[in-house]
């Protein structure tokens, strides 16, 4: 019996090297766990039928002595990451039967390493949500407390990893969609620098914000995955070329010890318990030798408002390709216009329709300047002040989410209340900087707390360093 609970990518790799178990045995253990628990959790929408074939292929790499850190590691993959020949529905009815005609770049890279793909995981429709309740395929439950949401939009991947139904998991972020479910499920979640990981073959929501993002049971798990996936891809026009990945020495100082806390951002709207845990975490950093500095990010309080203009604008543009003509759900209609209007009405869920209309509004003549253009300007301001802050401090620290995981069904009829889950997530996505969510202990009811660090562009390694230091003392 393999103890899945205590397994990490690194420890599994060592066991595979030492032949304590085979790739097939490891994958079988996860398939058994999925069989037992997925009915209740609904983390996976589909378990692939070739898992053991993949595992046997991976084993060959071990037998031939060419295995790498991710060879044979069983992954859960969010349903918006294309795998050739497999359905990729993005949690939407409009893509219910859509089979990808090519591999996304991240999948190509993982295949080369011999990673094993267990299946595709549930998500908010087109990644629009913070609780995995807008999926066309039912809600996902939080494995730590099945009456609660796992967070979202990458809730299926988070639940799969936290429930020990996978050893590694990929999600995507547009605004907190990995860090927030990581927080709700007691995991580590890394949102990489914008342009670090290829977006080729990822079903887009907000192109100027989206990043494929790894979950991990520990900091090192996210490091291993990030280090493999972070590289220039000529197939993604926003992928950052190698020459621009050289980090400015002044701002990247390794082993930096200065943590900036923008207290003014959470004077209101943060749960008492969350704030209390955050203060305790600060004390732990002080004991570890870090200096805590009060910083001001005056424009960052507008981050979520800016996000809810820019994102829907990009959504309305992106989702115009789903028209019932070339692929996906197609409704019958008397003429072409009816085919469009009915296919999109019946294929998209409520949240997707809402955001498309909102985006259409902020981009329409007469409102474009007041909303979209203004939002772009405030976004520049936010980016500027975040970069200014990094001249003074090495990290910016906030809680990941202002609340603990909430009950299923909550916040569904109040979009703004749902959006506020991501209030601390937005600055990193808007500024394009990396950010990591770290477990920071449990509430008296056993629910996970989480804190998040931001660092300058391409300073992921600094995030891993500080994360690993905290890991040792987080639950002390």
């Amino acid at each position, binding site marked *: 019996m393999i103890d899945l609970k205590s397994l990490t990518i690194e420890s599994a790799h060592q066991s595979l090297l030492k032949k304590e178990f085979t790739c097939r045995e490891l994958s079988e253990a996860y398939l058994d766990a999925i069989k037992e628990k997925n009915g209740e959790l609904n983390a996976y929408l589909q378990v692939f039928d070739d898992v053991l074939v993949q595992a046997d292929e991976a084993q060959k790499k071990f037998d031939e002595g060419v295995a790498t850190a991710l060879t044979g590691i069983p992954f859960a993959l969010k349903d918006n990451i294309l795998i*050739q*020949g497999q359905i990729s529905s993005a949690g939407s009815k409009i893509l219910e039967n*859509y*089979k*990808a*005609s*090519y591999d996304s770049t991240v999948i190509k890279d993982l295949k080369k390493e011999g990673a094993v793909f267990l299946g595709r995981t549930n998500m908010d429709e087109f990644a629009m949500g913070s609780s995995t309740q807008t999926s066309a395929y039912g809600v996902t439950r939080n494995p730590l407390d099945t009456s609660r949401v796992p967070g979202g939009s990458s809730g299926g991947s988070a639940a799969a990893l936290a429930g020990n139904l996978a050893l590694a998991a990929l999600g995507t972020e547009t605004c907190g969609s990995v860090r927030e479910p990581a927080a709700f499920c007691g995991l580590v979640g890394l949102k990489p620098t914008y342009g670090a990981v290829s977006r080729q073959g990822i079903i887009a929501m907000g192109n100027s914000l989206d990043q494929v993002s790894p979950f991990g049971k520990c900091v090192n798990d996210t490091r291993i995955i990030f280090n493999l996936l972070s590289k220039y891809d*000529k197939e993604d*026009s*926003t992928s950052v070329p190698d020459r621009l990945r050289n980090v400015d020495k002044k701002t990247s100082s390794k082993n930096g010890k200065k943590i900036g806390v923008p207290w003014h951002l959470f004077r209101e709207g943060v749960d008492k318990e969350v704030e209390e845990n955050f203060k305790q975490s600060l004390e732990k950093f002080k004991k570890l030798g870090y200096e805590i500095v009060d910083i001001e990010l005056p*424009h960052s309080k*507008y981050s*979520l*408002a*800016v996000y*809810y*203009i820019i994102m829907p604008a990009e959504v*309305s543009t992106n989702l*115009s390709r789903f*028209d*019932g*003509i*070339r*692929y*996906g759900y*197609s409704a019958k*209609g008397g*003429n*072409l*216009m009816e*085919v*469009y*209007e*009915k296919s*999109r*009405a019946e294929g*998209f869920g409520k949240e997707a*329709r*809402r955001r*498309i*209309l*909102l985006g*259409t*509004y902020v981009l*329409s003549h007469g409102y474009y300047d*007041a*909303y979209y*253009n*203004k*939002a*772009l*300007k*405030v976004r*520049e*301001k936010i980016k*500027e002040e975040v970069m200014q802050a990094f001249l003074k401090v090495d990290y910016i620290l906030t809680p990941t989410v202002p609340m603990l995981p909430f009950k299923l069904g909550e916040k569904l009829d*109040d*979009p*703004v209340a749902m*959006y506020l889950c991501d209030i601390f997530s937005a600055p990193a996505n808007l500024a394009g900087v990396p950010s990591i969510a770290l477990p920071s202990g449990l509430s008296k009811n056993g629910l996970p707390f989480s804190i998040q660090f931001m660092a300058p562009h391409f300073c992921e390694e600094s995030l891993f360093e500080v994360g690993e230091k905290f890991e040792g003392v987080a639950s002390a």
Partner: protein
Amino acid sequence: MDIKDVETLAKLARIELKEEEKEEILGDMKGILEYVKQIEGVEVGEIEVDHSLVNAWREDVPEGVRSGESRDLIVEQFPDAQDGFLKVKKIL
């Protein structure tokens, strides 16, 4: 914003809306716009949104068949097809 605006947006976005949904969307939109309106008064000064755009397209030359890409998988997705061609309603 009123019901007429919602209808216009739905028309522009090519989404058919049921009557009861128009009301609901109008309510939601009002709530969201009320929230995002806070950026109206933000002082941004003389900020220029200039990303020094560069052309990220590759040269327009044939690349040959890219490995692993499948014409069949694309054609298979067509909701309506005839002799391997995508079939659409008449447009004229």
